């Protein structure tokens, strides 16, 4: 165990320098966690009160208020000159008379937390991948968070710069200017890492990010496995910037402009099928250098009866790399039929999209409201095709291959809904929605295909796959304001898919009755329940796309299906400070007419949680969730000459069991002097792919019979357990010292990657695995918090 503290003194000094240069808040207030609540007695007495005002009466009352005079909006001189006005005094000044209070002078708020992090138990660098999947855990000095705010004198406009994890791979910075009801401008810059591996191995060189070269002669298995060098961590990094500016020039108009730019860089694992010799493949790294730009304008108009919003969104995706090329690990010269010395795979093409949406709502008599929305989106992709093959030995006429796709696909949708309350206890709702995907491209077929840069195939048509999905739903809700308030809802949903003939089913329909019952057993206890059942049926035929498809197989997204969903949620609030809830969910999909394919999909979930603020100073929460998933698949091994051998049937039962525990506490042992908190999350999962043959495979060749023989795949287990504890001692109400102790445990036993060697002969992997670790690290920090608000701390 080793704790590095060599920089801590520097850190403290730096913190003090920053603090000295800051100006503290001028308006002290109670801490944010001092919860304001109406007394329980007061609430109880409300039960006796039958007359209740509506929002309209409140509004109307406001309209009768006497118009203010010039005197009433004149600021009293005494309050503007007061350097430090308490919030209570401010409020009293506001409410006692008819004049506006001073909101104080120019105010600068500063807060920050600077510290030093060190590992107590540091995982091996090859085992780091999961720990830093979406975050960074640097050691040494760390600027955990920073807040700088400014409010002008007598202004409610707030300017704020805040951020977390400055300088780290996962830093977040936000700049905000907000004047409630007038404008809100936010700039957010997030860096989002995604680490895939820290123990990938591979031979060769990379003269360009998208070219992977192997030496000649090619390394064999005996060389790959012991000698392939480790690569640098395989990860991507997103730099995401979002600028949003909202402006409300009048209470009726809202204007909003949003710009989002995401730059993605780095690499991630990808496979490249070489095809030959021996259907070999090699795992390499996909180079990531992509940019997304999105600009959206939204304009809204609203009055008391009518609201309308229109928006236009332009989105562009640019990929620097159109393809990636890799040497074939088993072949160093191009050959016409055996295979190519190199493979070349297309990467995601650059594309653009234009999207327009109009949404409107209208309030009508009888508490009726109509909503409507329509959208249209055009997706354009016309990036030049890369050559059909990289194999120089291929003999084929490639001159007729089109230059690019000329894609101009997209979606459109139309939605109409209405809700009406003709009498007080009754609510009627109806919805109708249609959504269409247009698959429009200029290229109807490809005259020749070179499969895996090896084999020449005849012309292939491109399947156009447009579809339309229509939904309708009508429901009635009856609310009984009895001693035990009941709300019962019953409705019927209907859905229809129209697909192209390139799919299996052209017309699929589903009817779904649904019910819900909400019961307010007591004013401190409620039950919410819902039940949905659905029957989806094919109208017309199930068409097999190719002659070698199993005729009785049904794809789950187009098969007949019987569905049931049941949800139950109980919430108990015996005290305003104590909430307990439990929920139970059962989902069950059966595919009654699928002799082969997915047979059933079941899931069960039970959950319980409690949240208790014992006092203003101490709160605890905890939850436990159990989930089980079971999918049952029936398939049939289909080999040459054995296309429908019933003994080649096999069944796979996929079981997932996941248990999640979460617990946390927060305590102010000595308010504004000593506080502590912590959280433990633990997710444990195991899944099995149990597989068996109902009958012993016979009838084919020995090899075919062997291939048809099913066996269980090994169980996979996972444990993911982050924990975070902190204790803060406030030297003054503003200055604090915090010690954070964090651990993260990861353990996985996955036969698919554990112990995977880079080479198995015809398959060349990166050989990476998310190795186990039990990381423990500690962060000691100095913080300064303004009195008006707490500085945001990293989520516990």
């Amino acid at each position, binding site marked *: 165990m080793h704790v590095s503290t060599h920089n801590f003194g520097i850190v403290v000094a730096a913190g003090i320098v920053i603090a000295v240069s800051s100006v503290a808040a001028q308006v002290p207030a*109670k801490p944010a966690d001092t919860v304001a609540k109406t007394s329980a007695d007061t*609430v109880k007495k409300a*039960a006796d*009160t039958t007359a*209740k*005002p509506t929002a*309209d009466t*409140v509004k109307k009352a*406001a309209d009768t208020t*006497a118009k203010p005079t010039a005197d009433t909006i004149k600021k009293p001189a005494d309050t503007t000159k007061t350097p430090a006005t308490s919030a209570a005094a*401010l*409020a009293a000044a*506001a*409410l006692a*008379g*008819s004049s506006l209070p001073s*909101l104080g002078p120019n105010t600068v708020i500063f807060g920050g937390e600077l510290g030093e992090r060190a590992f107590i138990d540091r995982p091996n660098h090859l085992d780091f991948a*999961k720990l830093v999947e979406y975050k960074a855990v640097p050691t040494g000095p760390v600027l955990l968070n920073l807040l700088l705010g400014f409010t002008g004198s007598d202004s*409610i406009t707030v300017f704020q710069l805040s951020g*977390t994890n400055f300088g780290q791979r996962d830093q977040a910075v936000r700049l905000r200017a907000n*004047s409630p009801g*007038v404008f809100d401008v936010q700039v957010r810059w997030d860096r989002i890492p995604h680490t895939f591996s820290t123990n990938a191995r591979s031979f060769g060189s990379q003269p360009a990010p998208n070219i992977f070269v192997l030496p000649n002669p090619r390394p064999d298995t005996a060389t790959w496995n012991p000698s392939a060098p480790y690569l640098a961590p395989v990860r991507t990094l997103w730099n995401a910037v979002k600028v949003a500016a909202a*402006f409300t020039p009048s209470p009726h108009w809202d204007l909003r402009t949003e710009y989002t730019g995401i730059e993605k860089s780095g690499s991630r*694992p990808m*496979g490249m*099928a070489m095809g030959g010799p021996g259907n070999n493949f090699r795992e390499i790294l996909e180079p990531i250098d992509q940019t997304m730009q999105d600009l959206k304008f939204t304009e*809204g108009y609203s009055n008391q009866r009518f609201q309308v919003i229109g928006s236009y969104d332009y989105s562009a995706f640019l990929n620097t790399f159109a393809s990636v090329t890799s040497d074939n690990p088993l072949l160093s010269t191009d050959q016409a039929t055996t295979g190519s010395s190199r493979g070349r*795979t*297309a990467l*995601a093409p650059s594309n653009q999209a234009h999207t327009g949406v109009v949404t*409107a709502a209208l309030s009508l008599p009888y508490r009726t*409201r109509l909503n409507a929305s329509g959208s249209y*989106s055009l997706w354009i992709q016309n990036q030049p095709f*890369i050559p*059909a093959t990289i194999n120089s030995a291929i003999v084929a006429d490639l001159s007729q291959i089109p230059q690019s*796709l000329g894609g101009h*696909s997209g979606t459109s*949708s139309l939605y109409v*809904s209405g809700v009406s309350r003709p009498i007080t206890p009754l609510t009627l709702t109806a919805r109708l929605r249609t959504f269409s995907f247009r698959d429009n491209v200029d*290229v109807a077929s*490809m005259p020749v295909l070179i*499969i895996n840069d090896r084999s020449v195939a005849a012309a292939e048509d491109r399947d156009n796959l447009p579809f339309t999905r229509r939904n309708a739903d009508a429901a009635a809700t009856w609310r009984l304001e009895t001693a035990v308030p009941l709300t019962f809802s019953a409705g019927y949903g209907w859905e229809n898919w129209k697909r192209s003939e390139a799919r299996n089913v052209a017309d699929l329909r589903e009817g779904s009755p649904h019910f*819900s019952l909400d019961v307010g057993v007591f*004013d*401190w206890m409620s039950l*919410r329940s819902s039940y949905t059942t659905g029957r989806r049926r094919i109208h017309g035929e199930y068409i097999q796309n*190719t002659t070698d498809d199993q005729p009785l197989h049904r*794809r789950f997204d187009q098969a007949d299906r019987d569905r049931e969903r049941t949800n139950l949620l109980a919430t108990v609030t015996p005290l305003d400070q104590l909430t307990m809830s439990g929920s139970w969910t059962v989902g069950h999909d059966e595919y009654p007419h699928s002799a082969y*394919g997915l047979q059933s999909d079941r899931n069960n979930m039970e*959950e319980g949680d409690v949240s208790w603020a014992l006092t203003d100073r101490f709160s605890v929460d905890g939850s436990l*969730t159990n989930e089980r998933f079971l*999918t049952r*698949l029936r*398939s049939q091994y289909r*080999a040459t000459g054995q296309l429908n051998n019933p003994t080649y049937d096999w069944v*796979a039962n996929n079981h997932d069991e996941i248990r999640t525990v979460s617990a946390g506490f927060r305590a102010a042992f000595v308010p504004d002097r000593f506080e502590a908190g912590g959280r433990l999350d633990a997710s444990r999962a195991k*899944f099995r*792919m149990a597989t068996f043959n109902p009958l012993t495979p016979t009838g084919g060749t020995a090899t075919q019979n062997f291939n048809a023989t099913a066996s269980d795949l*090994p169980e996979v287990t996972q444990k993911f357990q982050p924990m975070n504890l902190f204790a803060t001692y406030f030297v003054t109400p503003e200055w604090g010292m915090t010690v954070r102790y964090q651990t993260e445990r990861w353990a996985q036993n996955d036969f698919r990657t554990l112990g995977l060697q880079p080479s198995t002969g015809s398959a060349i992997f990166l050989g990476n695995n998310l190795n186990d670790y039990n990381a423990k690290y500690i962060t000691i920090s100095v913080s300064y918090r303004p009195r008006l608000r707490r500085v945001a701390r*990293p989520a516990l």
Partner: protein
Amino acid sequence: MRIGSRPLFGIALLALCASGAGGQVTAMPPADSLPPGYAGSASCLDCHAKEHAVFAGTVKGRLLVGRPRDKHEALGCESCHGPGKAHEQSGGEELGQLITFSPRSKTSVKARDAVCLSCHEKTARVMWAGSVHETRDVACTSCHTLMHSVSDRANLRRETAPATCGRCHQQRVAQMLRASHMPVGEGKMDCTSCHNPHGSPNEKLLIASSVNEVCFACHAEKRGPFMWQHPPVIESCSNCHDPHGTAHEKLLKVPKPRLCQQCHDPTSHPTQPRGITAVDARFIQGRQCVDCHFNIHGSNHPSGKYFTR
């Protein structure tokens, strides 16, 4: 790093807006000109000074207490809680016509929500009426609180959106703690990155007209259109992925190769059950089916029909 100019653009926007800051303010009406039934907020302080002091420090509080923009806001406490004269005159013994918002309030959810919607039924809340949350009697104050600041934004009842939504959608919270998850716990996104809890014309309260279009907001490389398309990908990412978190890599609902074998039934390798043998290595180990079929979301290679190119 080509991103440097964008924050500057934001700063310029900030300055632009700051120059236009301000707006009309309306003073608190004198006590003798209050509408019938109203006591004036000053009387609230007699008993609720502590709550008011905290509220006055919030953004909303500074607006209502310090700079009301119209006569309605100038009513202060009573602009939301309604006329309080009866409550005041009973010495707090009776609520009278007051509207209360606590979790155990006797005020009906509709009456409570009507107060909020009288100002906020626009922009993202246009489709609140008839939405699943509205029809199930979820109150505005089930998720939001104004009297004190808990969250960094949106006046949420809990510190973050997932914690707020998780009060009812507990399974989603548990999913986000699974090994395969999106960076929600890391604070890089939250429920509202994909959903509009206030109502939406789209399924599952999504913010775009289909699941795919929500995903394309960050994963535009999957948008295409491609020369060779994988039908279930076009129809919904959720055919294979559960974005809330799973125990399988890449948020897959079912582990490969079984995920793919649910649909792929022609002759040859897809229908073989596969075991732990060297021959099956490239089908079972590493990234399984995607070891070879890398472009499974669609390929723009002229020869990419099988998504291997």
